[in-house]
Protein backbone atom coordinates (compact mmCIF):
# COMPACT_ATOMS: atom_id res chain seq x y z
CA UNK A 1 0.00 0.00 0.00
CA UNK A 2 1.42 3.41 -1.00
CA UNK A 3 1.40 6.61 1.03
CA UNK A 4 0.57 10.11 -0.23
CA UNK A 5 0.08 13.36 1.61
CA UNK A 6 -2.61 15.73 0.39
CA UNK A 7 -4.24 18.93 1.59
CA UNK A 8 -7.94 18.71 2.32
CA UNK A 9 -10.50 21.41 3.04
CA UNK A 10 -11.74 21.53 6.63
CA UNK A 11 -15.20 20.48 5.42
CA UNK A 12 -13.69 17.41 3.74
CA UNK A 13 -11.77 16.47 6.85
CA UNK A 14 -14.96 16.84 8.87
CA UNK A 15 -16.78 14.48 6.53
CA UNK A 16 -14.06 11.88 6.95
CA UNK A 17 -14.13 12.28 10.73
CA UNK A 18 -17.94 12.08 10.84
CA UNK A 19 -17.96 8.90 8.76
CA UNK A 20 -15.10 7.48 10.78
CA UNK A 21 -17.17 7.89 13.99
CA UNK A 22 -20.41 6.69 12.37
CA UNK A 23 -18.86 3.54 10.96
CA UNK A 24 -16.27 2.98 13.67
CA UNK A 25 -13.41 2.89 11.17
CA UNK A 26 -10.06 4.64 10.94
CA UNK A 27 -9.68 7.84 8.90
CA UNK A 28 -7.51 6.08 6.32
CA UNK A 29 -10.03 3.30 5.78
CA UNK A 30 -12.84 5.82 5.36
CA UNK A 31 -10.78 7.94 2.94
CA UNK A 32 -9.91 4.85 0.86
CA UNK A 33 -13.57 3.83 0.70
CA UNK A 34 -14.58 7.30 -0.42
CA UNK A 35 -11.93 7.31 -3.14
CA UNK A 36 -13.10 3.88 -4.32
CA UNK A 37 -16.74 4.94 -4.33
CA UNK A 38 -15.87 8.19 -6.12
CA UNK A 39 -14.05 6.15 -8.77
CA UNK A 40 -17.03 3.84 -9.19
CA UNK A 41 -19.39 6.82 -9.46
CA UNK A 42 -17.29 8.41 -12.21
CA UNK A 43 -17.12 5.16 -14.17
CA UNK A 44 -20.87 4.55 -13.80
CA UNK A 45 -21.52 8.10 -15.01
CA UNK A 46 -19.28 7.55 -18.03
CA UNK A 47 -21.19 4.37 -18.81
CA UNK A 48 -24.55 6.11 -18.42
CA UNK A 49 -23.41 8.85 -20.78
CA UNK A 50 -22.39 6.24 -23.35
CA UNK A 51 -18.68 7.06 -23.05
CA UNK A 52 -17.74 3.68 -21.59
CA UNK A 53 -18.87 0.30 -22.87
CA UNK A 54 -20.35 -2.37 -20.61
CA UNK A 55 -17.23 -4.53 -20.86
CA UNK A 56 -15.13 -1.43 -20.21
CA UNK A 57 -17.14 -0.66 -17.10
CA UNK A 58 -16.81 -4.25 -15.89
CA UNK A 59 -13.06 -4.09 -16.38
CA UNK A 60 -12.61 -0.79 -14.53
CA UNK A 61 -14.77 -2.02 -11.63
CA UNK A 62 -13.00 -5.38 -11.57
CA UNK A 63 -16.30 -7.24 -11.97
CA UNK A 64 -17.59 -9.78 -14.48
CA UNK A 65 -20.03 -8.50 -17.11
CA UNK A 66 -22.84 -10.40 -15.34
CA UNK A 67 -22.01 -8.81 -11.99
CA UNK A 68 -21.86 -5.41 -13.68
CA UNK A 69 -25.34 -5.90 -15.16
CA UNK A 70 -26.58 -6.82 -11.66
CA UNK A 71 -24.97 -3.70 -10.18
CA UNK A 72 -26.47 -1.44 -12.87
CA UNK A 73 -29.89 -3.01 -12.27
CA UNK A 74 -29.55 -2.55 -8.50
CA UNK A 75 -28.61 1.11 -8.95
CA UNK A 76 -31.26 1.62 -11.63
CA UNK A 77 -28.79 3.14 -14.09
CA UNK A 78 -30.44 3.51 -17.45
CA UNK A 79 -28.94 1.80 -20.47
CA UNK A 80 -27.59 4.21 -23.08
CA UNK A 81 -29.71 2.54 -25.79
CA UNK A 82 -31.77 5.11 -27.68
CA UNK A 83 -35.36 4.74 -28.84
CA UNK A 84 -34.18 5.01 -32.44
CA UNK A 85 -31.84 2.02 -31.91
CA UNK A 86 -34.73 0.04 -30.50
CA UNK A 87 -36.90 0.83 -33.52
CA UNK A 88 -34.08 -0.14 -35.90
CA UNK A 89 -33.99 -3.62 -34.40
CA UNK A 90 -37.56 -4.28 -35.51
CA UNK A 91 -36.55 -3.61 -39.12
CA UNK A 92 -33.95 -6.39 -38.80
CA UNK A 93 -36.59 -8.78 -37.42
CA UNK A 94 -39.01 -7.91 -40.21
CA UNK A 95 -36.36 -8.94 -42.74
CA UNK A 96 -35.73 -12.30 -41.01
Amino acid sequence: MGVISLRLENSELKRIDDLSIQENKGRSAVARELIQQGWQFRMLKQYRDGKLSLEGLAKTLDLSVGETIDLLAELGIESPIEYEDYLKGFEVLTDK
Partner: protein
Amino acid sequence: MKVVFGSSTLILLAKVNLLREASDEFEIIVPEEVKREALVKKTADAELISILIKERKISVQKADEVKAVKKLQVDFRIQKGEAEALWLSRKYHYTIAIDDGPSIRASKVLGLRFLTAIHFLFYMASRNKLSSALAQEKLTKLVQYGRYNKRIIEDAMKRLEEGRK
Protein backbone atom coordinates in the same frame (compact mmCIF):
# COMPACT_ATOMS: atom_id res chain seq x y z
CA MET B 1 -30.51 -15.96 -39.18
CA LYS B 2 -26.93 -16.03 -37.94
CA VAL B 3 -26.41 -13.66 -35.04
CA VAL B 4 -23.11 -12.90 -33.35
CA PHE B 5 -23.59 -11.97 -29.72
CA GLY B 6 -21.75 -9.50 -27.54
CA SER B 7 -21.52 -10.41 -23.87
CA SER B 8 -24.17 -7.82 -22.90
CA THR B 9 -27.06 -9.41 -24.85
CA LEU B 10 -25.82 -12.94 -24.24
CA ILE B 11 -25.80 -12.49 -20.47
CA LEU B 12 -29.04 -10.48 -20.40
CA LEU B 13 -30.91 -13.25 -22.23
CA ALA B 14 -29.35 -15.83 -19.92
CA LYS B 15 -30.43 -13.83 -16.85
CA VAL B 16 -34.06 -13.73 -17.98
CA ASN B 17 -34.02 -17.36 -19.14
CA LEU B 18 -34.59 -16.63 -22.81
CA LEU B 19 -31.25 -17.73 -24.19
CA ARG B 20 -32.22 -21.35 -24.81
CA GLU B 21 -35.40 -20.28 -26.61
CA ALA B 22 -33.38 -17.78 -28.67
CA SER B 23 -30.91 -20.52 -29.61
CA ASP B 24 -33.82 -22.58 -31.00
CA GLU B 25 -34.79 -19.73 -33.33
CA PHE B 26 -31.44 -18.14 -34.23
CA GLU B 27 -28.01 -19.49 -35.05
CA ILE B 28 -26.03 -17.99 -32.18
CA ILE B 29 -22.32 -17.33 -32.54
CA VAL B 30 -20.06 -15.91 -29.84
CA PRO B 31 -16.49 -14.71 -30.28
CA GLU B 32 -13.87 -16.43 -28.14
CA GLU B 33 -13.38 -13.38 -25.93
CA VAL B 34 -17.13 -13.12 -25.27
CA LYS B 35 -17.16 -16.78 -24.25
CA ARG B 36 -14.26 -16.14 -21.88
CA GLU B 37 -15.98 -13.10 -20.33
CA ALA B 38 -19.32 -14.85 -20.00
CA LEU B 39 -17.80 -17.85 -18.22
CA VAL B 40 -15.23 -16.02 -16.08
CA LYS B 41 -17.26 -16.51 -12.86
CA LYS B 42 -19.41 -19.46 -11.89
CA THR B 43 -22.89 -17.98 -11.88
CA ALA B 44 -26.27 -19.33 -13.00
CA ASP B 45 -26.11 -17.40 -16.28
CA ALA B 46 -22.56 -18.62 -16.94
CA GLU B 47 -23.70 -22.19 -16.31
CA LEU B 48 -26.53 -21.87 -18.84
CA ILE B 49 -24.19 -20.39 -21.47
CA SER B 50 -21.67 -23.16 -20.83
CA ILE B 51 -24.35 -25.86 -21.27
CA LEU B 52 -25.61 -24.31 -24.50
CA ILE B 53 -22.06 -24.23 -25.87
CA LYS B 54 -21.59 -27.90 -24.93
CA GLU B 55 -24.92 -28.75 -26.58
CA ARG B 56 -23.72 -26.85 -29.68
CA LYS B 57 -26.71 -24.54 -29.47
CA ILE B 58 -24.16 -21.73 -29.33
CA SER B 59 -21.06 -21.88 -31.49
CA VAL B 60 -17.79 -20.17 -30.70
CA GLN B 61 -15.90 -18.46 -33.50
CA LYS B 62 -12.46 -16.94 -33.56
CA ALA B 63 -11.93 -13.37 -34.73
CA ASP B 64 -8.57 -14.04 -36.28
CA GLU B 65 -7.44 -10.60 -37.43
CA VAL B 66 -5.89 -9.27 -34.25
CA LYS B 67 -4.88 -5.90 -35.73
CA ALA B 68 -8.35 -5.22 -37.14
CA VAL B 69 -9.96 -6.10 -33.80
CA LYS B 70 -7.52 -3.83 -31.98
CA LYS B 71 -8.32 -1.00 -34.38
CA LEU B 72 -12.04 -1.36 -33.66
CA GLN B 73 -11.25 -1.20 -29.93
CA VAL B 74 -9.30 2.02 -30.36
CA ASP B 75 -11.64 3.66 -32.88
CA PHE B 76 -14.80 3.04 -30.86
CA ARG B 77 -13.36 2.94 -27.31
CA ILE B 78 -14.68 -0.54 -26.68
CA GLN B 79 -13.21 -3.73 -25.21
CA LYS B 80 -11.95 -6.86 -26.93
CA GLY B 81 -15.13 -8.96 -26.76
CA GLU B 82 -17.26 -6.16 -28.17
CA ALA B 83 -14.70 -5.52 -30.92
CA GLU B 84 -14.50 -9.22 -31.83
CA ALA B 85 -18.29 -9.37 -32.17
CA LEU B 86 -18.25 -6.30 -34.42
CA TRP B 87 -15.44 -7.74 -36.50
CA LEU B 88 -17.24 -11.09 -37.01
CA SER B 89 -20.46 -9.29 -37.88
CA ARG B 90 -18.68 -7.15 -40.46
CA LYS B 91 -16.57 -9.93 -41.94
CA TYR B 92 -19.29 -12.61 -42.22
CA HIS B 93 -22.37 -10.35 -42.54
CA TYR B 94 -23.88 -11.66 -39.34
CA THR B 95 -26.49 -9.61 -37.51
CA ILE B 96 -25.01 -8.44 -34.22
CA ALA B 97 -26.83 -8.68 -30.87
CA ILE B 98 -25.58 -5.99 -28.55
CA ASP B 99 -27.00 -4.10 -25.57
CA ASP B 100 -24.27 -1.55 -25.28
CA GLY B 101 -24.26 2.14 -26.24
CA PRO B 102 -20.76 2.48 -27.76
CA SER B 103 -21.06 -0.84 -29.64
CA ILE B 104 -24.44 0.15 -31.09
CA ARG B 105 -22.92 3.45 -32.22
CA ALA B 106 -20.08 1.48 -33.84
CA SER B 107 -22.59 -0.85 -35.51
CA LYS B 108 -24.37 2.14 -37.03
CA VAL B 109 -21.12 3.66 -38.29
CA LEU B 110 -20.10 0.31 -39.82
CA GLY B 111 -23.56 -0.24 -41.32
CA LEU B 112 -24.20 -3.46 -39.37
CA ARG B 113 -27.65 -4.87 -38.65
CA PHE B 114 -28.16 -5.03 -34.91
CA LEU B 115 -30.62 -6.36 -32.37
CA THR B 116 -30.89 -5.94 -28.61
CA ALA B 117 -32.19 -8.41 -26.01
CA ILE B 118 -35.71 -6.98 -26.09
CA HIS B 119 -36.04 -7.81 -29.81
CA PHE B 120 -35.54 -11.52 -29.11
CA LEU B 121 -38.41 -11.39 -26.65
CA PHE B 122 -40.69 -9.84 -29.27
CA TYR B 123 -39.62 -12.30 -31.91
CA MET B 124 -40.42 -15.27 -29.70
CA ALA B 125 -43.73 -13.77 -28.58
CA SER B 126 -44.72 -13.11 -32.19
CA ARG B 127 -43.94 -16.74 -33.08
CA ASN B 128 -46.05 -17.96 -30.15
CA LYS B 129 -43.01 -19.43 -28.43
CA LEU B 130 -44.09 -17.61 -25.29
CA SER B 131 -47.59 -17.15 -23.91
CA SER B 132 -48.77 -13.59 -23.48
CA ALA B 133 -48.48 -13.81 -19.67
CA LEU B 134 -44.99 -15.28 -19.85
CA ALA B 135 -43.88 -12.67 -22.36
CA GLN B 136 -45.11 -9.93 -19.99
CA GLU B 137 -43.21 -11.55 -17.13
CA LYS B 138 -40.03 -11.81 -19.21
CA LEU B 139 -40.41 -8.18 -20.26
CA THR B 140 -40.63 -7.13 -16.60
CA LYS B 141 -37.38 -8.99 -15.88
CA LEU B 142 -35.72 -7.65 -18.99
CA VAL B 143 -36.68 -4.10 -18.06
CA GLN B 144 -35.05 -4.67 -14.67
CA TYR B 145 -31.77 -6.04 -16.04
CA GLY B 146 -31.74 -4.24 -19.40
CA ARG B 147 -32.64 -0.86 -17.84
CA TYR B 148 -34.18 0.49 -21.01
CA ASN B 149 -35.39 4.07 -21.09
CA LYS B 150 -38.99 5.00 -20.36
CA ARG B 151 -39.95 5.51 -24.00
CA ILE B 152 -38.70 2.05 -24.96
CA ILE B 153 -40.46 0.40 -22.02
CA GLU B 154 -43.77 2.11 -22.78
CA ASP B 155 -43.57 1.13 -26.44
CA ALA B 156 -42.55 -2.44 -25.58
CA MET B 157 -45.49 -2.89 -23.21
CA LYS B 158 -47.88 -1.49 -25.79
CA ARG B 159 -46.51 -3.79 -28.50
CA LEU B 160 -46.85 -6.85 -26.29
CA GLU B 161 -50.42 -5.92 -25.35
CA GLU B 162 -51.30 -5.40 -29.00
CA GLY B 163 -49.48 -8.59 -29.98
CA ARG B 164 -47.32 -6.98 -32.66
CA LYS B 165 -43.60 -7.14 -33.20
